[in-house]
């Protein structure tokens, strides 16, 4: 049992996967000697050598494209993209090849690849370092998209992602990297994919969120509880596929739904959750669905990022709205 931060739990899971399976290869920019710009791969090249923990040239498209070629040979590539804002050059390989290879070859070739990257803002980073672009990946069939909310879940979900025989996009909440520590048992136990996790049970409103926003959302739930408003808080965890059943069950119980995400609102993943409820739980709804999201603007430079990232106040306000209804 080690008390670790989220980024340290990622490091533990990577070390475990490399130790357990000779086919696992970690690659990315500065993941070697430097141990990654967030230290997620610290010490791994020293332990596993330069072939299994590789610095790549500075080219995200290349990293994703090589992962396809290596994956088709059966290697389990765990590639790091330094920040989510730099995923764009890799999207062609991810969408046109990684997500499709199994299907277009009818199972002959596969891509047991994980692509890890920091997700979201809140750390006063420079331009292009704070993006939340999960929906770009979730819309593509053939990919799984996972986003943990704590060290314990990061460890178990990353191991599950690495062991999954298909491509998984693994989004790491940047501002949780060092925020809170947890006891993480490095026992090689994976958590199930495709499942949401209920962080807190409640009766009045269902709050659905993921990644770093679980922090503000739980805090809002705390404050609301002081007014006897009981919130059920769901950590989506699996952004694709979405565990709609868990959400629908909760809404059937509470009758109210507030979705919280950092990404821009328009065509964000919250829309899919709200739409599914409008289709399958319309008669359970006691009030209109609310979305508390980033605004439909370019992610601002950090001076205004706190005005952009949904605040506890905005979440509380939305919950109150649903209770008016």
């Amino acid at each position: 049992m080690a008390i670790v931060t989220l980024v340290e739990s990622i490091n533990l899971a990577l070390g475990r996967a490399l130790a357990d399976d000779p086919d696992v290869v970690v690659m990315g920019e500065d993941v070697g000697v430097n141990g990654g710009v967030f230290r997620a791969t610290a010490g791994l090249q020293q332990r596993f050598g330069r072939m299994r923990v590789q610095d790549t040239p500075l080219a995200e498209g290349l990293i994703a494209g090589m992962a396809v070629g290596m994956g088709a040979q059966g290697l389990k590539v765990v590639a790091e993209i330094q920040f989510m804002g730099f995923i764009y050059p890799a999207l062609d390989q991810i969408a046109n090849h990684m997500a499709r290879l199994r299907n277009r070859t009818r199972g002959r070739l596969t891509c047991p690849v994980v692509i890890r990257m920091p997700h979201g803002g809140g750390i006063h980073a420079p331009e292009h370092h704070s993006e939340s672009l999960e929906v770009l990946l979730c819309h593509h069939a053939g990919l799984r998209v996972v986003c943990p909310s704590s060290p314990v879940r990061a460890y178990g979900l990353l191991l599950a992602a690495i062991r999954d025989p298909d491509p998984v996009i693994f989004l790491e909440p940047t501002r949780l990297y060092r925020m809170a520590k947890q006891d993480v048992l490095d026992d090689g136990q994976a958590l199930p994919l495709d499942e949401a996790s209920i962080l807190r049970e409640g009766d009045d409103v269902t709050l659905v969120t993921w990644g770093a926003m679980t922090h503000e959302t739980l805090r809002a739930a705390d404050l609301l509880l002081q007014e006897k408003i009981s919130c059920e808080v769901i950590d989506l965890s699996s952004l694709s596929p979405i565990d709609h059943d868990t959400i629908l069950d909760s809404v059937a119980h509470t009758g109210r739904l507030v979705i919280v995400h950092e990404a821009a609102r328009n065509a964000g993943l919250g829309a899919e959750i709200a739409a599914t409820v409008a289709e399958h739980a319309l008669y359970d709804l006691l009030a209109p669905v609310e979305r508390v999201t980033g605004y439909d603007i370019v992610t601002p430079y950090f001076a205004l990022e706190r005005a952009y990232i949904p605040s506890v106040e905005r979440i509380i306000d939305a919950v109150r709205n649903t209770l008016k209804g």
Partner: protein
Amino acid sequence: MKTIAEFAIGYEQMLDADGSPVADLPEFTRDGTELVRMYRTMVLCRLFDTKAINLQRTGRLGTYAPCTGNEATHVAVGAAMRPGDVLCPVYREYGTQLWRGVTLTEILTYWAGDETGTNFKGPRGDFPWCVPIGSQSPHAAGAAMAFKIRKQPHCAVAYIGDGGTSQGAFHEAVNMAGAQKLPVVFVVVNNGWAISVPAAEQTAAQTFAQKGLGNGVPGVQVDGNDVIGVRAVMEQALARARAGEGPTVVEAVTYRLSDHTTADDASRYRPAAELAAAWKIEPLLRTRRYLESRKLWDAAQESALRAECGIQIDAAVLAYQNRPAAHTDAMFDHLFAQPTAALTAQKQLARRFGIPDKH
């Protein structure tokens, strides 16, 4: 200003347009049956092209990308490779694929819009056709990296067209392969055109063989209509790669004697004179002449071969036409090893509505 680095690009040709040797021929040419096998495959490609175009014109096949004119390059590359190697093709290198065990029926099935055509029964490790131009190059670098990590004696071969070399992905892969001395060969098939854009407008580079120089990767240009020259250059490049000496960019200079695809009409943009001149140096005739000069071939064998190819092609077309009709389940069954709940539900929905007629 002092010179700190110098580079040169060599050109190889072993059979000229008349089929006369213009260089010492390599080892493998001693084996007459091997040479004949190469020629036979070239002819099969040419005749298959005609058939496929005809099937498309008569509504029995989708858009098709012909290979006419490029057969020498395609067959020579296949002949130089080993079974354990991995091929990352573009979409018209049938000669290489046939040599490696892809079937005519699989090729037709692919162009009929049926994914089962990419589930090659032969070369299980080869990548399928790659439509997004340039995106296959990193796959080859990746496969080569896997061979290096596992200390396997295999090589990857990535095709790209003259137009494709304008894509950054190609340069990224070449740079990576050079930096890590990966066992991969990048074959640029310079067939003169990228749809309607002539190679000369695509780049200021006077050769495509030099495309790797900027990234420290050597290159060589070869007459792509010379099946012996291409195979010789490829064998050297592959040997170099297997020896851990790194990648090579091989430019095969040939010509797209067909339209870009059956959806294209090259007469809109391509000078007729250029096409006529290209026909004078096409690869089949010179190969045949050379074989005849070596008494390995004659008119009787030629007509026998054409008859055999016709039979083989007809059989492949028959198998293609008799293949099981695609079922909607197929759209859902191969997305994941473990299908998601949503997919399972949608699969039922698709079954319910089936494949509606066009309106």
